[in-house]
């Protein structure tokens, strides 16, 4: 009975609020879903306006906003300016995060194993097949790695995480670039495919002697053994928020049309090499101007008050200078 009452009450509340202010609807990337829903909760408490975000994946988000069925779309893979112009969209970065390689080898602790881009690419190319390969040993002389076959785990679904990961591998390995390239779904030379960040973390934690790549938050929540990486400057860095921030601070958002910046393989001694940002897409000439204005209000609020919440979930908030640029873009490009 109580349960029924709650449902009825919830229905009534939903009905009554929707009479005053329509919920903001958005769809897209799964990677920022935790922080968007956290922001939405806080925003609802403060203003009474809800956000309905469906994490259907970056590709889905792009499709939905192009079809104008949602007020905003979200994607981990930024769209090029030509496509933005063609579809009449505005794009800006909302929050940043990082991707980490994770492994499951008995006796190896988090951050103990170091990879460089070349080695990681060769593992994913299927050229390095054993954990005691000379290339891995050279980077990790002190770690005791078994002479066992490496089980490579990667995404089976299209994914913004894969886009950023393969983009990094393309930048550090000419062979990867020519043979595989970068994209949300690529022609994997080897490995087993798992669905979603959850699937990859699940597989890696289950399979002995495996390696995978996930968003940092997933590695942290699932207590996976992440690795350190050698970055572009040749320094070994561990995946930490300062390292992500160092990579993010390199981005020159002001000069990038449509904020098309990919944060992988950034210079700087502290920079974590596989850093990524996630983007919001909105119509330049929205069909529903009130909804669009409400969405902008939400994003403005998130930039102003959401930084701490983002950091709690290991995301990196956008720097204030960039936020100012984005706010200018809103008033210049989105008709209200």
């Amino acid at each position, binding site marked *: 009975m109580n349960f029924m009452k709650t449902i009825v009450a919830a229905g009534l509340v939903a009905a009554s609020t929707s009479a005053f202010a329509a919920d903001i609807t958005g769809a897209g990337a799964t990677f920022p879903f935790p922080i968007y829903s956290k922001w939405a909760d806080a925003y609802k408490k403060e203003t009474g306006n809800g956000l309905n975000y469906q994490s*259907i*994946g*970056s*590709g*889905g988000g*792009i*499709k939905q906003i192009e079809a104008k069925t949602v007020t905003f779309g979200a994607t981990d893979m930024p769209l090029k300016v030509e496509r933005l112009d063609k579809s009449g969209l505005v794009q800006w970065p909302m929050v940043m995060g990082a991707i980490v390689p994770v492994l499951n080898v008995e006796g190896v602790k988090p951050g103990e194993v170091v990879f460089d881009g070349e080695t990681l690419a060769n593992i994913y190319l299927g050229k390095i*097949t054993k954990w005691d390969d000379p290339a891995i040993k050279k980077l990790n002389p002190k770690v005791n790695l078994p002479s*066992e*076959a*490496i*089980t490579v785990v990667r995404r*089976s*679904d*299209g*994914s913004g995480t894969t886009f950023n990961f*393969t983009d990094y591998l393309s930048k550090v390995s000419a062979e990867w670039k020519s043979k595989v*390239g*970068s*994209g*949300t*779904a*690529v*022609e*994997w*030379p*080897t*490995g*087993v*495919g*798992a*669905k979603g960040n959850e699937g990859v973390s*699940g*597989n890696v934690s*289950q*399979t*002995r*002697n495996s390696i995978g790549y996930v968003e940092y938050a997933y590695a942290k929540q699932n207590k996976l053994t992440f690795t350190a990486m050698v970055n572009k400057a040749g320094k070994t860095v561990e995946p930490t928020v300062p390292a992500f921030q160092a990579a993010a601070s390199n981005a020159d958002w002001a000069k990038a049309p449509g904020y098309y910046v990919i944060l992988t393989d950034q210079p700087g001694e502290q920079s974590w090499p596989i850093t990524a940002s996630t983007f919001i897409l909105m119509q330049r000439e929205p069909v529903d101007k009130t909804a669009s204005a409400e969405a902008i209000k939400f994003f403005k609020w998130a930039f102003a008050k959401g930084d701490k919440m983002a950091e709690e979930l290991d995301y990196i908030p956008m720097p204030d200078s960039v936020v100012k640029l984005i706010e200018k873009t809103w008033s210049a490009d989105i008709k209200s």
Partner: protein
Amino acid sequence: MAVQGDAVEVAGPYDRAKALSAFKAGDIAFYWITRACAISVLLILGGIILSLIIGAWPAMKQYGFAFLWTQRWAPSADPPVLGALGPMYGTLVTSFIAMLVAIPVGLGIAIFLTELCPQWLRRPIGIAIELLAGIPSIIYGMWGFFVLGPFLAYTFQPFMISLFDGVPVLGSIFAGPPSYLSVFNASLILSIMVLPFITAISVDVFKTVPPVLKEAAYGVGCTTWEVVRNVVIPYTRVGVIGGIMLALGRALGETMAVTFIIGNSFRISSSIFAPGTTISAAIASEFAESDGLHQSALMLLGLLLFVLTFFVLAAARLMLMRLEKKAGK
């Protein structure tokens, strides 16, 4: 008739024709309603095929028949290179291994249940088989992932490798790094999933064998095996093959459990312990994020599965008809 009688009593005899015509109208309406229901099935089927063809058209135009024997699956290449060989191979191989396991085991259970099982054990086993059919497919997927997979990867596969290492063909069938997401794992899960279909239907048709036939066979001194082989199976062949067909249909199209444990790799490997993919698994894992030619190619895969299933079922039907003819002679 009672209704008619009442109508006559209340309204007089001259209303009989009217009452009859009312019944007739009801009959005609009923005929048309049921007919519409039947036709709607055809319409829906046609609509599905048509929309699949429309969706798959761009990919058909782009790749032509080469789609069938291209192994590469590179949606991010420019232009995308997409071929169906990997998923088609995976679909056929998993179904084949599944049937290889499920047919003898399923028939074995059915024979035991109808011919040999003590009365008190019949119900528990029968109910267990029915429950097996009722388990949602994702549960099978989870079981394959957490229980069967590790067993296959760390116990069964090393054993098979040590057994067949160096043997030409068998050696390469069992080779590879231990991975519990594999074609073999998916095949075993499929075989468990289709087992109830084969068993349940076989039990039903085995029960239709007239006892007098079996008793006569026993009477002339046949062993149980001879009775099953020469009396029960020939008598029920059509029904048993029907059950196997149903099972095969399910094995070809099963999606969720397979997607969970097959490893989703488009590469064809000689080893059954390597990851692979099936048509339905490929569609399930890639459709949401696909667009353009990629999505169209997935639609074409769907169409292929449709055709593949159709041909398998048609072939089974044909075989049945031949058998019936032969039996008729």
